[in-house]
């Protein structure tokens, strides 16, 4: 898995690519936190349209980043999760805590 960033005005968007599991989160966790703390965005978006697989390690990844972002006073949303990813996010009740949105870019499925 790897991560790419996009910055527009007050928002920072991090797009994840590949598979999210316990092995792969280790490499991106710190990188994303570092970027958030550097950029200090008002709004942080975690773009998941290019994630082909996610297990419960993804829940930790989302929650951890949520803590980092809210810790500097920002808001967070999860963008374009696939059906499988959404199922896991909802099972853990993430949708009650974090805004989950689908944009028109979701043309992949």
């Amino acid at each position, binding site marked *: 898995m790897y991560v790419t960033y996009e910055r527009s005005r007050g928002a920072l968007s991090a797009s994840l690519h590949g598979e999210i599991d316990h092995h792969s989160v280790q490499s991106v966790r710190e990188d994303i936190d570092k970027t958030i703390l550097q950029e200090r965005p008002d709004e942080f978006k975690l773009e998941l349209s290019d994630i082909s697989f996610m297990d419960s390690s993804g829940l930790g*990844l989302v929650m951890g980043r949520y803590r980092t972002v809210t810790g500097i006073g920002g808001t967070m949303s999860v963008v374009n999760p696939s059906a499988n990813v959404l199922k896991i996010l909802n099972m853990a009740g993430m949708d009650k805590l974090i805004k989950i949105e689908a944009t028109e870019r979701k043309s992949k499925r």
Partner: protein
Amino acid sequence: MKSATILNKAIKEMPVNSFKCEFPAKSLNESFARIIVSAFVNQLDPTIAELSDIKTSVSEAVTNSIVHAYRETDIKKAQNVYLSGEYYSDGKIVITVKDKGCGIPNIKEAMQPLYTTLPSDERSGMGFTIIASFSDKLKVSSAPNKGTTVRFEKRIGNT
């Protein structure tokens, strides 16, 4: 006739296909385990959702063994994860993930949603909950310092 029926019931159905493998308890083998199980289950032509549920369940069980089982054991001992699978003529798939690690002292507690011994590592504690909800049947057996076996079943092609 009656005795034939009884005999039929007594014979345990043989799986149509099966596999067994073992690999070191290293985190890069989490994706390896998913690929093995995907390739095996694909023989039954599952839907994307069915395959995804099974892949996720395997990932949870294998990750548990990799993260927890050998945490405090002697490095000289083989630290392997044992993965096996079977499927039957009715579409029932049985996956077993086994380790010879520290074991789970309290299985009931470990299976509670959000229960984790490693919150600092961002472990969500949702692993068993996810397997339980994504499969038809889940059985966890464990003994201290002997190891843990996670066995789950899922029947595909129900609809």
